């Protein structure tokens, strides 16, 4: 099992230089059946990464560029009238794929975002009176520009909650950029080969569900999540005023699943507190709603998470 994951990582590295955190996050999403939100400036190999992942798994891949004039039917599909035989037929939208890159999701209006997020949650699409179930696996990797940029519609908290993880992608190091430049200029990026069958992926997902986790760690996860809602109970009265809303129960589920996937990717047979600690920032950062005071102070949700992890005792 572990060998296959290693091979998958190696294959992805053929097309992507650096950005290991993004690859790791994407694999966690794939193994845990969760969707990933990525925040970062353009040109950081987001499309390349998910494209390479699709090729390495032999899966379908589609990309939707979100724009302010996009309509829900543009992504989910529509019923089309055929004048020859006076009948209606269904035209499926780009959502009908395995891996979907929703580029610059915060450039589209709320109704389009809602249409996508509903599909992400239900994994089914209803066009007219017909319901279609999406094929497994279905992974959405959405990207969004930093919210400070102009012409963007911020994603509502309820919709953000549908994403399992939010990754913040930064620029590559100088050494990595040098390699990218050389490879990009001479088109020396190697071709990505298929290394994993869908059945093998499902087997990996099954193995993940069976991975052992100590009940104390399950409690630890719940405590971490609870600390975002009732910080005073964990001796974190100092941050109580900085949090408007703590995270939802969906966060507990996602943290639980992500920790399993992380442990698996690290080659462990069981989950340790380190696995939880390594994914908690990515799982919780977009779910914590900061108070006005905290935002005025320039605080980030990552600081809240750091304090929580620092304070809640590990088993």
């Amino acid at each position, binding site marked *: 099992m572990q060998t296959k994951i290693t091979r998958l990582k190696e294959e992805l590295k053929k097309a992507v230089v650096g950005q290991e*955190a993004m690859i790791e996050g994407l694999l966690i999403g794939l193994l845990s059946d969760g969707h990933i939100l990525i925040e970062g400036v353009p040109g950081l190999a987001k499309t390349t990464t998910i494209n390479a992942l699709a090729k390495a798994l032999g899966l379908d891949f589609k990309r939707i560029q979100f724009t302010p004039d996009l309509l829900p039917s543009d992504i989910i599909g529509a019923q089309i009238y055929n004048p020859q035989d006076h009948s209606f037929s269904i035209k499926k939208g780009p959502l009908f794929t395995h891996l979907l890159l929703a580029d610059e999701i915060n450039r589209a209006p709320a109704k389009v975002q809602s249409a996508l997020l509903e599909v992400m949650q239900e994994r089914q699409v209803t066009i007219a009176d017909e319901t279609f179930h999406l094929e497994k696996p279905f992974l959405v990797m959405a990207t969004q520009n930093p919210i400070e940029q102009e012409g963007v519609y911020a994603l509502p908290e309820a919709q953000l909650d549908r994403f399992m993880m939010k990754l913040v992608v930064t620029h590559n190091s100088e050494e990595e950029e040098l390699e990218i430049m050389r490879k990009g200029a001479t088109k020396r990026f190697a071709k990505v080969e298929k290394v994993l069958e869908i059945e093998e992926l499902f087997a990996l997902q099954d193995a993940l569900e069976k991975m052992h986790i100590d009940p104390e760690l399950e409690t630890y996860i719940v405590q971490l999540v609870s600390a975002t809602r009732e910080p005073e109970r964990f001796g974190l009265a100092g941050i109580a005023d900085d949090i408007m809303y703590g995270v939802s129960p969906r966060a507990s589920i996602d943290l639980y699943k992500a920790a399993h996937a992380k442990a698996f990717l690290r080659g462990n047979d069981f989950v*340790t*507190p*380190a696995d*939880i*600690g*390594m994914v*908690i*920032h990515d799982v919780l950062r977009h779910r914590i709603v900061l108070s006005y005071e905290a935002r005025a102070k320039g605080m980030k949700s990552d600081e809240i*998470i*750091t*304090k*929580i*992890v*620092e304070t809640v*005792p*590990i088993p």
Partner: protein
Amino acid sequence: MSLSTKDTYVKHSPGKLFLFFAILLSLLGAEDFSFSTHVDVPDPYVKEAVLLSVDLNQTNHDIVLLFNFDLKPSPDYTFQRIDSKETDSYHNAKVHYLYLVYPLKSGDVKIGFDLVKRVTNDESVAYSFSGDRDNVKGLVTQNTTVALPPVILHVKPLPKGTQLVGDFKLNYEIKQTKAKAYEPIPFEVTISGRGYLPLLKNLIPKSDAFTLFSEKPIIHTSHSKEGLQSRVIYPMALSAKENFELPAIKINAFDPKKERSYTLEILTTRFQIEKADVNTLVDKVDNPAPYRTDWSWLTTLLGYLVVFGAGFASGWLFKWHKKQRHDLQHPLIEKIDACKEKKTLLQLLLAHDAVTFAPVIRKLEADLYGKRSTTLKSLKQEAKEQLHAN
């Protein structure tokens, strides 16, 4: 104070002063004007003043004619324009120039001319006058450079050893012949008369017996048809530590008008110097040997080395201090040091940067949940090193 002149007659044949029309005319200007020159001495001596007159007379009266005229500069002679008369009558320009020319070498010396003929018409003149202070209108002329034949002087050489050319007198004044040691004694020589400017480079020769202080000569001149009248004053001072004698100085001169050589002389003068009482002087030895070896270069070198070393050390210290400050200021260092248990350290590292501390986290995991055993101190140290590496 005293004056002495010795006259010597030169044996060559005396020159004649007569008027000589060297060249009449040049019809280069399509006979628009006539050109004539005249020199008073066609065969002068070197540095003898020659009076050269030039006349330009308009002959074509249908045009408006103007002249730009001067002698051509040359290393063979010097010149000075002493007069020019222009008759501005319309359509009938007449110009008369008067120059003093001094040939500087013997043999044939060609005196060249620069002439630009400027032709215009009545309309242009009228137009140029139509402007005012705020709207100046230039006179449009057709300019033509006219080549004129040179005047040739047959210059005779001077008698050998001649230093001055002309009729000069020499006066000198020494205010005192007695002085104290190193006291400056004012000494002034004046050469005046008519002839080539009496400038001498080393009027008083240098001597070990005394020190000579000299200033730039003071020159007074006036030009006239008779030549250059001048008076050159050489202000000087003498100084010595003991009695000395200023030797007689003879200046050979030649008068071209009279064609005779003569000598201007400064007589021998003795000076009595009262010796200084060495015991009363602060510095008793003249030009003494160095009291000790001059090691100032070494001091300078060491100074530079110290400055360089200080700069280097301060740079190093700044870097070191910055590193120390960085270590101290990083809040995580303090927190790492404060950890008393491995679990606390793991918790801290996970909270702050699980990626950076991944190797230490792996070791802590193996220690806490596996069979490996590592000391807390070494884990802390490794965490701090990883923090520095980033």
